[in-house]
């Protein structure tokens, strides 16, 4: 799977829009507006046909890939393509690499952004607009152009750094910045961090304790949201990894697909399902907390 700039864009707008949507949603639940039907049944036929056509368009390829990989020409319905894919050794090496890179990205992302967002919220409020503006800059730089710049400056200056797969951690953190910032910012707003930290400090806690024991636990939902989105994007990023010649899981996925007619797409389907499960889990975790927390979480 390969996220492109479109994933970035999509991730941020999901975050923005789900945030406002969720807020609007919860507001609508608190002040229910009477559902208007103007006293007669509105014609729903046109609307339903749109839904049906879209459903066909979106679901057909999923069915196609399932059938393609499960109903093999000479063997009928079997999981052989899947078992073959799973046993591929390169799968394990690249997947493991990608997972480690993901872990590193999440760690760096969260550490950097929690610190920064906290600092701007509590200490230097006037810098908030500046930091927010900077956090959405990655949005405006397409990954393909970004990687050109990266290669252009790092190759001559720090060639070994760029050749190292873990260098991706830094660049992926940049890619993740817009929605990590958004998520944490909204989360902090929702818990009125200023009051909480003042209360904690007033009771005698130091800064580290305050952050670890008061702020972070209350940000659980926002952290989860930011983490899940980061994971989804990093596990699918193709452009930068490809052009920096680092063999991550998505890169492997693409090459495997061209080598193996059936096992390739089978692996692809499995990774798509994994992302879907990830999002489902995210939805589950955030919905459980309900109300404002859910908003903060996805936001």
């Amino acid at each position, binding site marked *: *799977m*390969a996220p*492109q*700039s*479109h*994933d970035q864009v*999509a991730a941020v*707008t*999901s975050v*923005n829009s*789900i945030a*406002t*949507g969720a807020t609007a*949603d919860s507001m609508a639940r608190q002040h229910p*507006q009477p*559902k208007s039907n*103007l006293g007669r049944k509105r014609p729903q036929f046109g*609307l339903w046909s*749109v*839904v049906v056509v*879209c459903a066909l*368009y*979106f679901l057909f*390829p*999923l069915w196609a890939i399932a*059938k*393609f990989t499960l109903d093999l020409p000479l063997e009928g319905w079997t999981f052989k393509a899947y078992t073959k894919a799973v046993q591929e050794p390169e799968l394990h090496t690249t997947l493991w690499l990608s997972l480690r890179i993901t872990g590193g990205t999440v760690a760096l992302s969260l550490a*950097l952004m929690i*610190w920064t967002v906290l*600092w*701007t919220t509590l*200490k*230097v409020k*006037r810098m908030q*607009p500046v930091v*927010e503006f900077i956090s959405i*800059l*990655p949005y405006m730089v*397409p*990954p*393909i*152009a970004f990687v*050109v*710049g990266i*290669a*252009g400056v790092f190759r001559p200056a720090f060639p070994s750094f760029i050749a190292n797969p873990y260098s991706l951690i*830094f660049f992926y953190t940049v890619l993740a910045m817009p929605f990590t910032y958004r998520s944490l910012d909204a989360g902090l707003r929702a818990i009125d961090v200023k009051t909480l930290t003042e209360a904690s400090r007033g009771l005698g806690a130091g800064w580290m304790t305050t952050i670890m024991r008061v702020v972070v636990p209350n940000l659980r939902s926002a952290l989860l949201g930011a983490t899940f989105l980061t994971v*989804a994007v990093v596990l*699918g990023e*193709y*452009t930068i990894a*490809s*052009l920096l010649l680092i063999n991550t899981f*998505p890169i492997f996925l*693409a090459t495997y697909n061209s080598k193996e007619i059936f096992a390739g*797409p089978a692996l*692809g*389907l499995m990774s798509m399902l994994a992302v*879907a499960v990830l*999002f489902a889990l995210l939805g589950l975790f955030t919905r459980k907390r309900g109300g404002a927390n859910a908003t903060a979480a996805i936001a």
Partner: protein
Amino acid sequence: MGSESGRQLSSAVLATPAETPVSAGARRHISWAWIGLVPFFAFVTVFLLWPTLAVFWKAAHDNAGNFTLSTYGKIATSPQFRQSFWNSTLLSFSSAVIGGVIGLLLTYAIVSIRRPKWLRSAVMSFSAVAANMGGVALVFLFVASIGVTGLLTTFLLGHGIHLYDKQFIYSGSYHVLTVIYLYFQIPLMVIVMLPAIDGLKPAWREAAANLGSSGMQYWRRVGLPVLWPAFLGGIVLLFANSFAAYATAYVLTGGQSNLASIQIGFFLQGNTIADSQQIGYAIAAWMIIVVLIAILLYQWLRSRTTRWLQ
């Protein structure tokens, strides 16, 4: 985001820290507090600003190190690159407009349709996944559907329709790419439009009816004018999205499609006879400019949206 970041965006752009008047004591206080932001600024500078600015810088300097803007101009005038930018623009425009309109209709549908109740959240969840799905995944899906041995291809073959006289899906044809891009464009539009359509208060519809207007009149005089900035913003966003996309086109066509993003990739891979790497940087620079303008336009339109809908 929305009006908040729109305003903050413009205020951030307009006011630099140096221009903010502060008292001597406060200035001292603030400059000490800045230390906490150093990690962030340092990180952003090294890993985002430096590479990005380098693109523009290197595009303006030839191999000998002389400053020249001619390469920027060369891209604009050379037929080869003009063609790739034109292709990208065309592809982005069509996938944005088609995706935008379908997305709008779909969003309106899931907001208006009450039964079944799970329809709306199902579409929203699917959209969240589909919009974030990577380029490689799309290749899988569509090869299985309309590839040489794809399900739809064989189905149509059975009815005498040959999709493959000309290598169809692999040809890099823009019609095919547009259809494929819709898979993430439509969900993105849904995600963007949903808050806007949700923001249409039922009271407006009812007040209009009360005053004597029919459905059409309401849409013409209130509904569509209010939704217009959001709709336009969505289309602009979709355009930027598609313009910057690389992975799907690359993996699918192996570089056969002449798009701006693919061209940039060639330069990086050293696949072209580069009289200078400068050209590669220039293409990248132009691409950043296009996307930058589009995103700023989107932000501005979004701020106008929330003005009326929140």
